[in-house]
């Protein structure tokens, strides 16, 4: 929940916006070498960040060891790719990006400690990092106290909006509501069975899903169940669902449990081509472990799929594979992580400054037209306007896009009527 120190929204003054826009358009015309003269370090860095005439230092803070390494590896790879591409294109305000990578070790206090190190010792101009909500909650006070800037990539439960964070993933309503509407309309769904791992993200998400199903769609929830993280036996709940016969199984199960759930579902003879299943926790990354043959036919509600057919995405996928190998797959969060460095570059150049306060103020309205998911724009609440998409799992571990919202969905981290 929001505390007193977290401001819910903040709007830059009109003058600042205009100034930023002017800086962006004029700067686009000049060669990179001239940047440093037009933007002398003393002017663009008034708070003592690690910015020189030629270089700027940022931090990467993810888990590369421990349980979460499975998930966070992709984010690190995407951020490094983005940084490399930005440097190849002339850097940020003519300065080359240097990164310092720290390992959160899947341990939340370690995340806080490393965040403090990056902000206080290294004076980084921004940090791309965190994955789980728990790690973000752990570093949030650090970023607010030492006034840092965090680009956070994961889709998450919402109920947060900090001046010091840009949320490049979806908050819960962006991921849930459009998907439920689609499954009602397209599949004629009337009854739902909600499943989740037992922690904040699945619980908050299912709460929003239940409210939407019952109050807005006027449909029925037959059951809602949670399992401890790491739970590996799902036969009982599968039997229960066989008895309840829901039109849609709505699953938010994570980690190793995910694999066990889909394997046992398949073994129990539940054919996902006949039984509609929708998940918001299985990206292409997870299918690697689950095995495509175990989830083929299931629907996932995301904002990005590796198979998206647009020029931005084609370039992104081939650059990613060139850098990290042909076998790597790209999931929703990996793409969101890729947006972080780019959005930061665009914001800094719009603000004409590396100062955290100016970057925070300039963020709303920043557009990134080169995003692999398509066009994105930063909202006043520091989340992204982005489309919701539904994909259908193929046997080879990729998704076929079956639906996307016509408009960008507005991020709404404190949804009214859902709490």
């Amino acid at each position: 929940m929001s505390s007193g120190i977290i401001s819910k929204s903040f709007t830059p003054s009109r003058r600042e916006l205009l100034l930023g826009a002017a800086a962006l358009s004029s700067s686009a015309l000049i060669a990179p070498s001239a940047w440093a003269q037009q933007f002398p370090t003393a002017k663009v860095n008034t708070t003592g960040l690690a910015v020189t005439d030629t270089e700027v230092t940022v931090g990467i803070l993810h888990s590369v060891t421990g349980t979460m390494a499975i998930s966070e590896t992709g984010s690190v790879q995407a951020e490094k790719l983005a940084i490399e591409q930005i440097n190849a294109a002339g850097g940020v305000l003519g300065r080359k990006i240097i990164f310092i990578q720290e390992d959160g070790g899947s341990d939340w206090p370690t995340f806080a400690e490393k965040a403090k190190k990056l902000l206080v010792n290294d004076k980084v101009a921004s940090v791309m990092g965190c994955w789980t909500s728990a790690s973000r909650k752990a570093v949030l006070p650090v970023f607010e106290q030492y006034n840092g800037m965090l680009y956070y990539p994961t889709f998450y439960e919402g109920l947060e909006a900090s001046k010091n964070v840009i949320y490049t993933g979806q908050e819960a309503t962006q991921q849930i509501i459009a998907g439920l509407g689609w499954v009602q309309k397209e599949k004629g769904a009337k009854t739902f069975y909600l499943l989740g791992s037992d922690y904040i993200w699945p619980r908050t998400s299912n709460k929003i899903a239940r409210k939407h199903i019952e109050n807005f769609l006027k449909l029925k929830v037959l059951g809602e169940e949670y399992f401890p993280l790491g739970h590996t036996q799902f036969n009982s709940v599968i039997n229960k669902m066989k008895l309840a016969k829901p039109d849609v199984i709505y699953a938010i199960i994570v980690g190793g449990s995910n694999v066990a759930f889909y394997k046992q579902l398949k073994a129990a003879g539940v054919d996902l081509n006949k039984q509609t299943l929708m998940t918001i926790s299985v990206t292409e990354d997870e299918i690697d472990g689950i095995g495509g043959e175990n989830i083929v036919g299931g629907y996932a509600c995301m904002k990005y799929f590796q198979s998206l057919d647009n020029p931005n995405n084609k370039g992104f996928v081939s650059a990613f594979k060139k850098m990290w190998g042909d076998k790597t797959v790209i999931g929703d969060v990996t793409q969101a992580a890729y947006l972080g460095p780019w959005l930061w570059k665009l914001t800094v150049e719009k603000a004409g400054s590396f100062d955290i306060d100016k970057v925070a103020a300039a963020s709303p309205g920043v557009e990134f037209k080169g995003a692999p998911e398509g066009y994105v724009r930063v909202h006043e609440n520091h989340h992204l306007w982005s489309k919701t998409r539904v994909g259908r799992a193929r046997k080879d571990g990729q998704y076929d896009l079956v639906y996307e919202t016509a408009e960008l969905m507005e991020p709404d981290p404190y949804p009214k009527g859902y709490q």
Partner: protein
Amino acid sequence: MFGDYSVGDLMSIMVMQGFAGLILFSVFVLMALGLAIIFGQMGVINMAHGEFMILGAYMTFLTSHLCETYAPGLYGGYFFMAMIVAFIASGTLGLLVEWTLIRHLYSRPLDTLLATWGLSLIMQQAFRSTFGAREVGVELPPWMMGSLPVAGSIEVQINGLFVMGLTILITAIVALLLYRSRWGLQVRAVVSNRTMSGAAGIDTRRVDRLTFGLGCGIAGIAGSAFTMIGSTGPTAGQLYIVDTFLVVVFGGAQSLLGTIASALTISQSQSTLEFFLTGSMAKVLTLLMVIGLLMLRPQGLFVLKVRR
């Protein structure tokens, strides 16, 4: 809650639910067997048990790939080969670990706890460096997937039947070894009185080493079988270790029968509770029950009568 369902529906669900309980029981026995043998015989708590299981799972992954590439004709049966490979790999590593690490620590049981925990961390990182941080998908031959329709709406999972069969086989082999072989006789002698057995000419060191290797090898087979129902990743061993300890401690560390009885109690109560409550609550109640019973019987369900 049963108002809306027909009698036939309820009957078939009860049968399937009973079967789910039996699968869970087999899984627990298979997990705990290796640990119980080692703990019972040597008093060593092997914290790296889960990692030995995952080694078996990775061996299955490798075997399936090798089989697919070099002998696609044998693919349908690769799982049996994989289990043998898993047993050999985990067992050999177990022998090696006993020889280099554990045998120096027999007089310091608490230190073995720490040493094997360290070993588990090393193994996790080794898996991560070798196979990557992400989970790997182990593909099953087609005949092992899906379920068999038995009668009406009753269906039983083929891989569940497979795990049950495997558990019965392994348990029978272990029981035979323990109670009918010369090695088993020596093991039981060492468990009763280590010093006296040494004096009677039993090479207790050798017995220890074989026991440790066998325990780890069985863990490898278990890990191989669990690729059917769970995930294979560097830290997946941690998913099983808590349940494994629960079964072994609750059963009474030194008795095969105790392990089986405890696995039965825990699995049946858990799967029944899960059906009527939610997954998390079922776990809470199961743990409460185990704690309660352990307060009444700190030694576990079954205890060998040993003169100390």
